[in-house]
């Protein structure tokens, strides 16, 4: 499928074939697509948690609902929870990665980059002040995570999956999935990126949906 075709075909799917499992290979493709997203400083900004509906207890599944996720959760065999990993916001991460990019020539001396420039100017004058502002840290983590989610969703469409991005029930998700504890500022991260993609084979209603205008985003 062409990229533009995948972009054009993407819809917020709310009907899924509930008994058709999603192949792990397709989930792997989504995660790899997310991993290939543009990322400033070549930093790892996000984490994704793949959840299989049938491995959840009925109570947990029920507790995960929010007003905009009702039958979707019952039908979708897979949910992927995305959150920004706020531990990215350490100047040393940028220093290390930028110098690695200088080393391999991605940030090239012909364009003015060098280890010395990273050490003496970029980290001290740009990165450190930027990361000292919590609002910028949250904003940046959200955008970078969003880029990854976007690519994952398009890859899913390319794989023939239906996807929809939803808000989550933060507290239930934290309790149910026991997200990794700090150093990740989990709560902050989830608040910044309180979304998950519901995935699965689009149900028979998809054709009707795809003929009309794109439904409102989830």
């Amino acid at each position, binding site marked *: 499928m062409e990229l533009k075709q995948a972009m054009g075909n993407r819809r917020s799917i709310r009907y899924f074939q509930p008994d058709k499992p999603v192949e792990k290979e397709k989930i792997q493709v989504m995660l790899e697509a997310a991993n290939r997203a543009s990322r400033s400083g070549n930093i790892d900004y996000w984490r994704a948690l793949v959840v299989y509906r049938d491995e959840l207890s009925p109570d947990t599944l029920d507790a995960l609902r929010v007003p905009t996720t009702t039958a979707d959760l019952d039908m979708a065999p897979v949910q992927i929870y995305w959150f920004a990993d706020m531990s990215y916001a350490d100047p040393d991460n940028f220093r290390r990665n930028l110098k690695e990019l200088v080393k391999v020539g991605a940030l090239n001396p012909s364009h003015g980059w060098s*280890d*010395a420039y990273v050490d003496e100017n970029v980290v001290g004058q740009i990165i450190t002040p930027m990361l000292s502002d919590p609002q910028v840290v949250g904003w940046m983590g959200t955008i970078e995570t969003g880029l990854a989610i976007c690519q994952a969703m398009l890859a899913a469409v390319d794989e023939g999956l239906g996807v929809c991005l939803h808000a989550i029930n933060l507290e239930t998700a934290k309790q149910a999935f026991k997200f990794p504890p700090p150093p990740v500022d989990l709560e902050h991260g989830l608040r910044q990126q309180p979304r998950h993609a519901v995935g699965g084979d689009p149900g028979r209603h998809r054709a009707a949906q795809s003929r009309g205008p794109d439904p409102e985003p989830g």
Partner: protein
Amino acid sequence: MTPEEVAAAPSVGRWFDSARLHSDSEEEKQLRYRLLGDFCEHIGQSPDELVAGLIRTTKAGETAISGKRRAAMDASIDEFVEKSGFTGRDAIVNGNIIRSFLVHNGIFIQGRAWRG
């Protein structure tokens, strides 16, 4: 400046370390030393002074690259290359060798591209 004097400057050592030039042939190394030495004479400063002259101290006490002085240095490199009689690709390459010295000493200055 003699090539030996140029080679002894800490900023030149830093350039060779960062750009991994130590494994170049002796002929290439001498070419770089001579070129930078000639440029230093053109400007009237040592290699270390070239670098230091492009750094300024901000009001907050941090070091930063002086945009105006960097632009002037860029123009001086072009002027030196022209005065030295380099033309075409040689002018680009030799100008970029001097810029490489500055880049590897932390001065964000962009090289010229040879477009044929």
